[in-house]
């Protein structure tokens, strides 16, 4: 074995420049795939973290997943009844008398629930009209469900209780209106109610849609403003373990009848986009590795051509086909392994560099640094891919060399 390695090394040394080039090829493939993977999973994880942190894990909505069963169907449970063209009655939407629901949801271990009433209002300040979503909350419940309190850059959540008609605005919204803490603006709803409200807090979540067009006020005030007494349109839930949101949503829906949506369901579209993005990235990276593999294949083939005499004499001395195959496989593998190790280093360096880059990106969320994620899995997958590629690239010429008939070469060499 050691003997084969020694021979393999002399072959590689004899083609140092080419070897270095294909090692660089492997290194680049491995390094960039690690860097891209850390960036991809980093931004994905960042996005999911933000969703998980800033939005409810489960939202119980004031709607039903399927239209209610019609009385005729309910009556003839087993009858061959089929209805078509049913027009559901226009019901005033909303979860009426939400309190018992909220109390019972809060009773589930690991669950915090808070009611929410959301409506479009027009806010006016100093002659500027800005339409915004106003969310009515119960601060003492809300602080256990959302991060609104941590996101406050000015003011206190409890000021909603103490200041009459207090309102908390997103930073972008406050800027658009030109208001500050203490300003009094007027809010009018489609129901025709007008309310003077005092700005008691400013928040900044980093999620653009929220910061630019959302405000919070006391649930009671918003019910008045929207003229929907004792009604909420959602109950927000936060779970100790966000990964269990889907199961929890299903159970709650079965129990309460209202549609309960997990964060995964709510963000399905974006999560799908991530999947597609990952496929594109991995395809790109695989093609870098395939090019690197061609480099290895090329060198090992060249060496086998160059060394036919050595192969012939080794075989006539008594080396088996297997020995020759191993010899050239080693050469491919050496390049693959060295390339992989260097690629790991390159990947780590790129990961650190990318993580240090300052950026101002405003897509779904605001970043100040590229979110990168360190995961050993990336290193293992990239390394395994490179080594498999190197093995295949070395094996093909190795097999050919091993099958060479020494007599043919020896006859031709005088």
């Amino acid at each position: 074995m050691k003997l084969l390695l020694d021979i393999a090394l002399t072959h590689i040394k004899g083609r140092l420049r080419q070897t270095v080039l294909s090692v660089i090829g492997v290194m680049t493939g491995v390094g960039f795939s690690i860097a891209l993977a850390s960036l991809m999973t980093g931004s994905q994880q960042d996005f999911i973290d933000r969703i998980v942190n800033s939005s409810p894990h489960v939202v119980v909505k004031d709607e039903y997943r399927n239209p209610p069963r019609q009385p005729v169907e309910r009556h003839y449970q087993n009858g061959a009844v089929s209805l078509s063209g049913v027009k559901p009655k226009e019901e005033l939407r909303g979860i009426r008398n939400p309190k018992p629901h909220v109390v019972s949801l809060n009773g589930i271990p690991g669950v915090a629930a808070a009611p929410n009433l959301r409506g479009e209002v027009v806010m006016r300040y100093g002659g500027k009209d800005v339409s915004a979503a106003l969310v009515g909350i119960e601060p003492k419940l809300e602080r256990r469900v959302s991060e609104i309190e941590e996101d406050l850059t000015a003011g206190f959540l409890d000021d909603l209780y103490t200041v009459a008609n207090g309102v908390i605005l997103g930073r972008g919204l406050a800027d658009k209106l030109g208001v500050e803490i203490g300003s009094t603006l007027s809010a009018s709803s489609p129901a025709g109610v007008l309310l003077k409200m005092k700005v008691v807090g400013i928040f900044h979540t980093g999620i653009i849609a929220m910061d630019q067009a959302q405000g919070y006020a006391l649930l009671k005030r918003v019910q008045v403003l929207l003229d929907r007494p004792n009604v909420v349109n959602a109950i927000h839930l936060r779970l100790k373990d966000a990964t269990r949101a889907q199961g929890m949503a299903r159970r709650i829906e079965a129990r309460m009848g209202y549609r309960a949506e997990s964060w995964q369901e709510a963000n399905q579209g974006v999560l799908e986009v991530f999947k597609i993005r990952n496929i594109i990235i991995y395809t790109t990276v695989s093609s870098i590795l395939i090019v690197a593999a061609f480099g290895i294949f090329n060198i090992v083939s060249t060496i086998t051509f160059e060394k036919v005499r050595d192969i012939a004499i080794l075989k006539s001395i008594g080396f088996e086909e297997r020995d020759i195959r191993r010899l050239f496989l080693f050469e491919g593998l050496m390049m693959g392994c060295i390339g992989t190790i260097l690629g790991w280093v390159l990947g780590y360096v790129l990961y650190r560099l990318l993580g240090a880059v300052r950026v101002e990106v405003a897509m779904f969320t605001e970043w100040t640094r590229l979110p990168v994620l360190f995961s050993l899995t990336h290193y293992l997958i990239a390394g395994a891919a490179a080594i498999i590629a190197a093995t295949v690239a070395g094996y093909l010429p190795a097999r050919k060399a091993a099958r060479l008939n020494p007599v043919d070469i020896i006859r031709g060499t005088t």
Partner: protein
Amino acid sequence: MNGSALIETRAMTRVLPGPVPVTLVRDIDVTVGAGEFIAVTGPSGSGKSSLLYLLGLLDRPTEGTVWLKGIDTETLTEDGRSGVRLARIGFVFQFHFLLPEFTIIENVLIPMRRLGGCPEGEMRERAAAILDDLDLAENLERRPHQLSGGQLQRAAVARALANDPPILLADEPTGNLDTKNADRVTDIFQDLAHSGERAVVMVTHNPDLAARADRRIHVVDGRVAEDL
């Protein structure tokens, strides 16, 4: 089958298949015994090399049998034949076939290391001793390109002797050498055959060298025309 024979062939024929089959050798019956120094002669293209490859298990006959120390080589697998070549047979060709990146002693060590079974230090000693016997003591650490033709050919002989094989097969080993060096290599072969249980079979075009052998096998058109 002769019990004391190292190699024995019976009706050995080798035909290259193809649209026009080529007969390399036909109906060869030869016996090579221990301590014999045999010269194989014959015109160019008569099948001398082909015969040697068959005797050395580098090639398989299409008909007939080859026994090696009483073993029917037909029954051996390809790996089995490799094993026999490694331990029992030494080859020397017209070209030295030394690996250019390795020193002379490393080249001699290659068959030893492949066979294994003894410590590296001991192998080195043995290799140095073989090279010393062949007057190459000064060149152990030199690379092939630093040696003369005669030295290279002696180094190739040293490698063939690495695992102390009972059979040494040489195909025009002196073809590239001047008279003096050719004589010297022939001396070595003669000594190797006569000093022990070894058999040496040497293909040569040179009648003077052939004359020094104990036996001459003359090949014409792939057949043994004379075995004296």
